[in-house]
């Protein structure tokens, strides 16, 4: 009898939990009508600790400030994308308490998580006019850029006007990149280059650099050819930070890297020894053909396993504002998608970056990932 009762209770608990999960999407839908004050009220009425998983260390700072502002207990976890997805899936499938809200980078996996209702998109109604349409669903909270940056010691590296310059024999061993196999956004960038759009641009750039039409040989398009030659010239560093530190050394003349711009602000990087290709191009009125690096999004979404969905929405609203973006916005290399926020002095606005950099298209990446990544690994040997 007792066993039966226990079983009954357990199954009731399970049922009630699944019921809660199903509600998150509805809550998000209905919240579109709420004013800021009403959202705050609903968020404060929720119980338990507000939990966030984020592939960015500053999430903890942002959450601490948020917790203070609204007096809501919060807990921020800095995890990698794959860890976040693994945890989310296991926790939501197992109806266990996990994240209420997540910040992630890998858009290709995100598509699945959205299609299968693990994550719910929420765009604060007031922001509809301030965020570019492309960035609204799924909501991109900010973009981060990786740029061609080179050592200016002895002026050994000529200003980069065309990415085919990096494939020249003279650059062999002088291009430093993080192994795309160990960082997803790097692989995603390479995948994007094989798209019709980018391979056409690369073919044009080839012509303007070498003065003749590209000969593809066995390569499917110009994107593949550039990837092959670029990777053959590259040496892999272990992290963007160490790449930035290394190229900034006085002994590193002649080296060029493709890494996160924000590392230039790190106290251990001798930024004076580095030149950002795009900055040089903007100052001297030339363009880097056809791109001067790439840019990748950081998405902000509500977990369908949220037990504090309103708090999650309030936090997203907060992150999209000046105060919430502050932990990232205080240094160069991070760009809020809220166009009302002005970029940092000395940096360029997101619209300029989007025109001069390769932007991710999650659907294309998901579709072509296996082909391109198989190709890429052959050039990592």
């Amino acid at each position: 009898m007792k066993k039966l009762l226990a079983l009954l209770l357990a199954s009731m608990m399970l049922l009630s939990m699944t019921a809660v999960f199903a509600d998150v999407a509805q809550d998000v839908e209905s919240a579109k009508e709420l004013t800021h004050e009403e959202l705050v009220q609903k968020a404060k009425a929720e119980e338990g600790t507000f939990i966030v998983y984020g592939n960015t260390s500053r999430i903890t700072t942002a959450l601490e400030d948020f917790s203070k502002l609204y007096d809501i207990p919060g807990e921020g976890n800095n995890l990698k994308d794959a860890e976040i997805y693994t945890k989310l899936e296991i926790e939501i499938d197992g109806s266990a308490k996990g994240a209420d809200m997540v910040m992630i980078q890998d858009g290709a996996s995100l598509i699945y998580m959205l299609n299968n209702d693990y994550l719910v998109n929420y765009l604060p109604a007031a922001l509809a006019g301030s965020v570019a349409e492309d960035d609204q669903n799924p909501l991109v909270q900010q973009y981060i850029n990786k740029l061609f940056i080179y050592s200016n010691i002895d002026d050994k590296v000529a200003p980069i006007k065309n990415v085919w310059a990096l494939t020249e024999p003279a650059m062999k061993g002088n291009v430093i990149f993080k192994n795309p196999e160990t960082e997803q956004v790097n692989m995603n960038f390479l995948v994007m280059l094989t798209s019709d759009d980018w391979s056409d641009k690369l073919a044009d750039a080839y012509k303007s650099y070498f003065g003749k039409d590209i000969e593809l040989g066995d390569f499917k398009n110009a994107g593949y050819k550039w990837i092959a030659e670029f990777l053959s010239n590259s040496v892999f560093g272990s992290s963007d930070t160490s790449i930035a530190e290394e190229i900034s050394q006085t002994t590193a003349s002649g080296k060029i890297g493709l890494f996160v711009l924000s590392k230039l602000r790190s106290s251990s990087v001798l930024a004076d020894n580095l030149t950002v290709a795009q900055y040089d191009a903007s100052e001297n009125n030339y363009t880097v053909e056809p791109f001067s690096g790439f840019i990748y999004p950081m998405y902000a979404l509500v977990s369908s396993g949220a037990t504090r969905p309103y708090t999650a929405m309030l936090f997203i609203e907060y992150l999209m504002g000046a105060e919430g973006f502050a932990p990232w916005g205080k240094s160069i290399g991070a760009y809020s998608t809220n166009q009302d926020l002005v970029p940092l002095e000395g940096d360029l606005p997101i619209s300029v970056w989007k025109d001069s950099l390769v932007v991710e298209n999650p659907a294309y990446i998901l579709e072509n990932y296996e082909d391109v990544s198989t190709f890429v690994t052959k050039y990592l040997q």
Partner: protein
Amino acid sequence: MIKSNPLRWRRLMGRVRSFLSKPANIILLVFFIILTLLTLYPLVILLWETVIVHAGREARAIGLKKGATTLYHFKRLLFTLDDGGAGGIRLSNSWIQFYEPLFNTLSVSITSSAIAIAFGGTVAWFVARTNIKYKKFISTVFVFPYIMPSWTLALFWQSFFKNVNVGTGTSNGIMASVFGIFVPQWFVYGYFPISFVLGLHYAPFAYILIGGILRNMDANLEEAATILKTPRSRILSRITLPIVMPAMMSTLLLVFASSMSAYAVPIFLGSPVRYYVLSTKMKSLMDTYSGQAYIIAAVMILFGVIILALNKKMTGSRKSFTTVTGKSSQIALVNLKRANRPIALLLVVILALAAVLPLITFAAESVIIKAGDYSFSNMTLEFWIGKDLQYLDQGDSNGILFSPKVWKALGYSLALAVTCALVAGTSGMLVGYGIAKRKNSKLANAVNSLSFFPYLMPSLAFGAIYLAMSTRVSWLNGFVLLALVGSVKYLPFASRSGVNAMLQLSGEIEEAALVVAVPWWKRMTRIIFPIQKATFLSGYLLPMISCMRELSLFVLLVPTSNTILTTMLMQYSEKGWAQFGNAINLLIIVVVLTLNFTVNKLTGASIDKGVGG
């Protein structure tokens, strides 16, 4: 049927009762059940993962829904050998993703095991069996490399030996800039340094396990040989080596399995020369095509099992290794005579380079502001004792000694390490007792293998499986979950030293007490434990230290990245917050050394004490 044959039933019951009357049997039975649940279940899950479709890229590539069964992962990872085009088999997917990394992994694992056994075993012999000078120093310092998280040792290697002619070719390390020595590329990156760093990192295994046996072995055997004028080399090869063989095999197993799943060292020392091993491939596949990653995990386990079987064959039925009989306690130390000082000095220098120099480097790197500039004007203690450091934008606004975040994580790490040590250590001792008492029985063999099994599971995969398990058991979360995983994963350390200690112990000792009807727990606490205290305590200390510096096992299970010190440290290392990272690394080392010292003062045992000194 049972009722129809009361005699048979009674006989069976009698047999059960007599079976259960022996504590060793109860211990083995209980651990058999628990370990089956805690290790075989994860293994089954892991194998299941190799045949199902996972979400995202994988589902897209295969064209099946998540959860469907498939042999695609096997086909893709192991049998795609024809897509290399002009490059032939060497550019095929399977060769690149599996066979070549497998070959590299085996080379690295075998080499690092050999280095660990040769280096650790030799030093253990000198410390335990000779009158070498500076024993205390050698013994204490030898375990340092194991206390440091292995990747910090790799970072040290890189920053010490790098120069403008190798790798990224961007800067000179201390060797080049201070001594003007530009070492070749193979010395800085790839097979050699990876094997060497791992071998150095795990040499303390050999030192502790082999040293424990050497110290406790019966000197009668060697003395008898000496009386018969057997040459010393023959004594070593025919008596000493066979006796330490089980410990050497245990070491081989531990170092091999650890090296195989080491991830951070090959990333730091392999990337620049494009040297890949299975663990690095597994990690990147885990993020994209996890089915193939789990196959790699299974292959790693398979290799572990092969060595485990070898190990069993060598230590199993053939020989008895009873060396502590209670009849002799005198160990004759070999007199090194004139060779004493040169050998001692050589060891001290090697240890200073391998164990002390990294510490000094960490300390230096924790106070300099811009990398590579070691002048006083570029130094600050802000990262240790500073306040209001927001301007640095490095994740913390206080120096680590004033950071509430760091202290909280330290407390958590300590509590976790101590819990794991207590659970694993006690279990290991009991398991050792059970196995030794019921030696060669089926149950003992099963428990022996089961208790070792967790160590063969790659940490990352083990963590993921426990995370999945935790969602099905309501009380399994937070601290309990971490402590359970840590205890199970590090049980092999404790059970190894437990089994080693017990196998050495002659049955007569316990029988003597049994004759006068001393109860079991009293025999354990008053006789067995005190005799083999040193070896048992190493079974407590090793799990504790390993937990203090463990990363990949816990990374999926910690409630937040700031929960324990290592996840915090890895975050800092990855973000490139070198000063905070180095400071925390030193903090971990100092805390572990303090713990070791305290245990040493309180109980007379310590990690290195398994050996002597």
